[in-house]
């Protein structure tokens, strides 16, 4: 089915697995399959945001991440995601202890974060992306990402009892 340049069937064939794998970072099994349908419905709604500057896979990855985060309104569930003890669920092969500490600190902030900041936090602390990669995915400047991460860490310090 062709919708203003995006072929939904083709997208699903090529990237359905990618999207489902990403969803499994947030949801398990049957619920993940429901979310998969939601993400592709969202893809049709949001197709005008795909400008061909990155691959459709990158666009769907971002769309999926945002959709899952929006769906996770429950702050407790978000905290569980970041403090996930299962190494395969949030697997970061090179995570250092300092990064783990930061991640836990951020996990305490979930209920305070807006969706954009939560999304940036996932890319940075969980996926291990650089400022440049996050900027590319979100279509904003590296400086914006740097500022937003600084804001995230400032909130973390305040939440941890430190100076702002």
């Amino acid at each position: 089915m062709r919708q203003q340049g995006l072929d939904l069937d083709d997208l699903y064939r090529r990237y359905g697995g990618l999207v489902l794998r990403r969803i499994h970072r947030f949801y398990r099994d049957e619920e993940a399959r429901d979310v998969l349908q939601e993400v592709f419905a969202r893809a049709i709604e949001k197709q005008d945001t795909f400008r061909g500057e990155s691959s459709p896979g990158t666009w769907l990855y971002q769309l999926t991440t945002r959709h899952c985060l929006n769906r996770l309104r429950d702050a407790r569930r978000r905290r569980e995601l970041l403090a996930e003890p299962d190494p395969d669920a949030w697997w970061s092969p090179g995570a250092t202890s300092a990064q783990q500490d930061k991640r836990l600190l951020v996990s305490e902030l979930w209920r305070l974060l807006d969706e954009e900041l939560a999304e940036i936090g996932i890319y940075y602390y969980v996926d291990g992306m650089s400022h440049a990669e996050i900027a590319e995915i979100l279509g904003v400047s590296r400086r914006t990402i740097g500022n937003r991460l600084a804001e995230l860490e400032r909130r973390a310090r305040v939440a941890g009892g430190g100076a702002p």
Partner: protein
Amino acid sequence: MSPLTRDGHLLDLTIDLYMAGDLSAEARATVDQHRAGCAACARRWALAEEALAVPLPPLRVAALSPIRTPAPAPSRGWGRPLAFAAALAAGLLLALFPEPPPAERFVARGGASVLEVFRATEQGAERVHDGSLVAVGDRLGFRVHAPEGGWFLVFGVDAQGRAWPAWPQGEEPAAAHLEPSFEPVTLSAAVALDDSPGSERVYGLRCARSFSWSEARRWAERDLPAGCALDQVRLDRRP
């Protein structure tokens, strides 16, 4: 975009894009080199391959499209359909079409079953049979039987003889190919009925070879060739 994390390992996204064939040659070379020397990422790679080998569930997303583009003809009272079309264009009527109920056995002209038509309800989706009553705004979804695969086109013709595509969508689309499937295939398309008067006939046409829109239109009326099967469902308007 760098294929590596800040710690120098493969990004999850990199692994997925590599497997989808979306990485540049340069990025692929970086990935291959890293995989060869990193046991941790090799393990993640194997997990990703395992996950991507699992068959995906059928896509149930149905983008509602107007049954046709209404022409401005005030004498026929097109005001409402025009507003309806505008809403569609704004993407306001996109929806998840409910999962249809289990398939029933039926036989099409040409000797093989082809098409099932469903109407979305608040409770899910219900099968609409030949002679069923429909109303303006009803959302219709489609499922086809493709045990041997082949080329498929689902379309409708209104009481004035105007044809509209259901699947594939687009302007006068040609048939699309489906792989053999023992399970009926729910098509990723749906239509919303406008207020054209009279009955609608919905056709499901399957052929062993590809065929054009104009061929489908002709064969629905006459000269159905060997190797093709045709189903028809007539829908009547509620008074």
